């Protein structure tokens, strides 16, 4: 008789934590992890240090291939789920493979967000979500002198500091409304600016970017609300959006992320969501909230797996949950801006 199969969509911290916890809970389950990226599980928050050269590439990666073999977890990388048929308990991959499942954990994380008005300039900007992005930065930095950072998500703050450490000139246009999904209050924005300045980053007066133009192979002109400027590399750091487009017509409740209760359950039996792609209900708030950050994702992945195996663990978060942003305490953790 075939073993029951649990498919985990994703290969980030939530997905891997879920797989490991699930294997601890049960030995006879067929666990299959499907990741869209081709990289093994890595620590995205270390990418700035890797770009700056203070870390080796191998330091990024978390889980060795042997772990999956030892734990009898099937991992499939570079493969994309295009839709899920919950009534038939099967999902479809982009190459038309039908994968039946008995249980499902959606932990597909987020995708790089670029504001709509800047999307036409996408090719002129670099992002930093994956090791491949980091590789592009490393290549570009070999000749670049001036780097302009747009936006201001969590990654951008540590990245700007890392770039300064390489001796590059780093300019920053902090777009307060882009501190996504957490908008900065004017007070916090001022504090962030001061901290960036103290780190050697030039925080510019501009607050809006209108246009980017490639002047030459290594010079980009940026038109802002206060005038024109040039840089050798431009980075876009507007946070991540939940990567749930493929679920929109699946019957699952999807708002910005997959809606789950405090036990990370979706409306379908034995289907859970965890990490950056989940929008979690908070009974005290009577609203859904979203978490960001590596540690939160690990925790949620573990909770989803435990609950799938029969537990009833609640995700640990209080309305007063606090994030630490480069030393600045941000006292909000729920979904504020869409």
């Amino acid at each position: 008789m075939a073993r029951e199969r649990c498919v985990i969509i994703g290969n980030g911290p939530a997905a891997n934590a879920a797989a490991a916890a699930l294997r601890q809970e049960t030995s006879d389950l067929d666990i299959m992890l499907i990741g869209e990226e081709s990289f093994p599980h890595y620590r995205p928050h270390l990418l700035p240090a890797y770009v700056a050269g203070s870390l080796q590439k191998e330091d990024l990666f978390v889980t060795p291939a042997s772990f999956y073999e030892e734990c009898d977890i099937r991992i499939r990388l570079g493969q994309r789920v295009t839709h899920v048929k919950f009534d038939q308990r099967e999902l479809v991959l982009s190459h038309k493979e039908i994968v039946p499942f008995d249980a499902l954990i959606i932990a597909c994380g987020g995708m790089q967000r670029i504001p709509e008005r800047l999307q036409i300039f996408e090719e002129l900007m670099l992002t930093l979500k994956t090791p491949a992005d980091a590789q592009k930065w490393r290549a570009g930095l070999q000749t670049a002198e001036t780097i302009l950072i747009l936006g201001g998500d969590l990654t951008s703050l540590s990245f700007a500091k890392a770039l300064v450490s390489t001796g590059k000139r780093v300019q920053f246009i902090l777009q307060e409304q882009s501190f996504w999904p957490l908008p900065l209050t004017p007070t916090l924005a001022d504090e962030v600016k001061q901290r960036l300045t103290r780190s050697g980053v030039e925080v510019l007066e501009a607050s809006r970017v209108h246009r980017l133009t490639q002047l030459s192979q290594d010079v980009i002109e940026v038109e802002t609300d206060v005038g024109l400027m040039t840089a050798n590399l431009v980075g876009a750091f507007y946070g991540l959006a939940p990567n749930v487009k493929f679920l929109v017509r699946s019957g699952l409740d999807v708002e910005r992320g997959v809606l789950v209760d405090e036990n990370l359950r979706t409306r379908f039996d034995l289907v859970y969501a965890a990490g950056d792609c989940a929008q979690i209900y908070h009974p005290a708030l009577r609203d859904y909230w979203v978490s960001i950050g590596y540690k939160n994702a690990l925790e949620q992945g573990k909770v989803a797996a435990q609950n799938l195996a029969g537990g009833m663990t609640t995700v640990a978060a209080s309305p007063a949950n606090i994030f630490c942003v480069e030393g600045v305490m941000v006292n909000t953790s729920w979904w504020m801006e869409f």
Partner: protein
Amino acid sequence: MATVVDITVEVCGMAGDGAIAAGALINEALSRGGFSVLGFDSYPAEIRGFGRCVTRSRIGSEEIVAMGAETHVLISLNEAEARSRIPFLAHRAMVIFESNPPTYVHHDSSFVAELPPDKLLFGMPLSDLASEATGATRGRNLTALGGFAAVCGINPALFIEVIEKKFKSKGEKVLHTNVKSFEAGYAYAAKEYSEKREHAFQFPELLRQDGKVMLSGNQAIGMAALDAGLKLYFGYPITPATPIMEFLAAALPKKGGRVVQMEDEIASIGAVLGSFYAGARSMTATSGPGFALMTELITHGVMAEIPAVIVNAQRGGPATGLPTKTEQSDLHAAVFGGPGDSARIVIAPTNVSECYHYTVKSFQLAEKYQTPVIVLTDFYLDNRVENVVIPRASEAETRNGNVFPPASEKGNYKRYCLTESGISPRALPGMEGYIFTATGLEHTEKGLPDYSPEVHTLMTEKRHKKIASALADLPEPEVYFGDDRLDVGVIGWGSTFGSVLEATRTSRKKGLRVAALKITSLSPLHTTIIQGFMERCSHVLVPELNYEGQLANLIGHLHHRPVVRLNLVTGTPFPPSMIIQKIEDLIHGEAA
């Protein structure tokens, strides 16, 4: 430091998918791009319609002499067939496959699902792209090549050039369709995998080499026969020798010669003996089953001292065996096959270039020593392609080898006169004053039948002395890498020698005292040289693509301890890694 390239690319599909054609284009494009290329196709025995076709190309920035066991890039044109290739994929191998098949595939039978997680996947809607570009899906093999070029950073112009060369003669429409199919795949992969390709292997840009051609062993044999002045080819089709006949059927009439398809192999060898008897250079090519039919008449050539050139392109045996698989199991048949003590010359090239030069040489040897000469190849050597400088034979190589009788013998001609070397001057029919009888019966010096013990003893000795004296004209065994004392000496012949050479090179890089010996003259054997090499070795290892260790049987007695046999009958080329492992086992005392 320049990147050292050593990549094996494999195209796999069902018969009719164009896998073999795609492989040929890869070979030629990368050969033009300055790489050393060795390609080998594997296809079903059936004539057409079904079965798995696989073409493998090993591409290197340094000389490639053997096919490796692992595949670094798999281009799948048929996922059901490609599943069998998964075990051969190297760590982090790239896989290009159809991402939009006509039907959904259940997980349990999915090719992609079976791929280990370390593989880099490059799904492409091959049929859709080809169809959008040309209106038909037929060019999807070219579309896949476009994807391969884009992902691996290969200049597309190299492929466009070879596509134009291949399809130019088929009209503008066909050419356009193929170029468009390629371009569609290139554009798709360049865009879709602009980031991911950074993790794929990138081919560096080398200096172009336009002076080399992709040549198979069979083509080289055909070219050699033409350059040697072949007048007549007689044959009966059989895999893997048929391409020689096909090549000559097109080329020989243009040089005033003729190709005749005979009713069978017996007729073929009979006609070859007849032609040489009359003084015309002729040849036949066959494989194991056909060679078996020829054996009686080969020994007739031995007895009557008539030249003949026979190519035996070995395949898996016995009997009909494995028509499209490689094996080296006809060595005993080539050296000993047939009734009586029928010594003959057997020469076995080890690469494409030697296929050319030893075939040229075989005509001269046959004439000079008045005996059948067997050129012993195998499927892997016949069908593999290497990029080589177009071979040319020197005037000395193509010179007529006949030894005619002096005028003093006119009227008293002894066709089989006993001489020091065993070679008796041979008159051709029609030469005035040199009448003789040529017979398969034992005979006197004049050629008259005689079964007396004295005559048979003398004539048997004469024929064997003649073959022994041929050693002077036969290539000596070559030693690769020489130390006075060797822990392991590896002896190779035929197509396996490339694997022996690579294994030896690799082992020496690891600091092991190893050397290789190449034997191309298998009958007669240069026993003194072979024994001299063996004496320097603690272990003698003989890898062969046969079960019985047929070369080991021939030379084993020359060593003071049993030679170590390494035999493989998988129908596939000998992987160097197996030889390396055996060398290490021997040195570390884990095998005897």
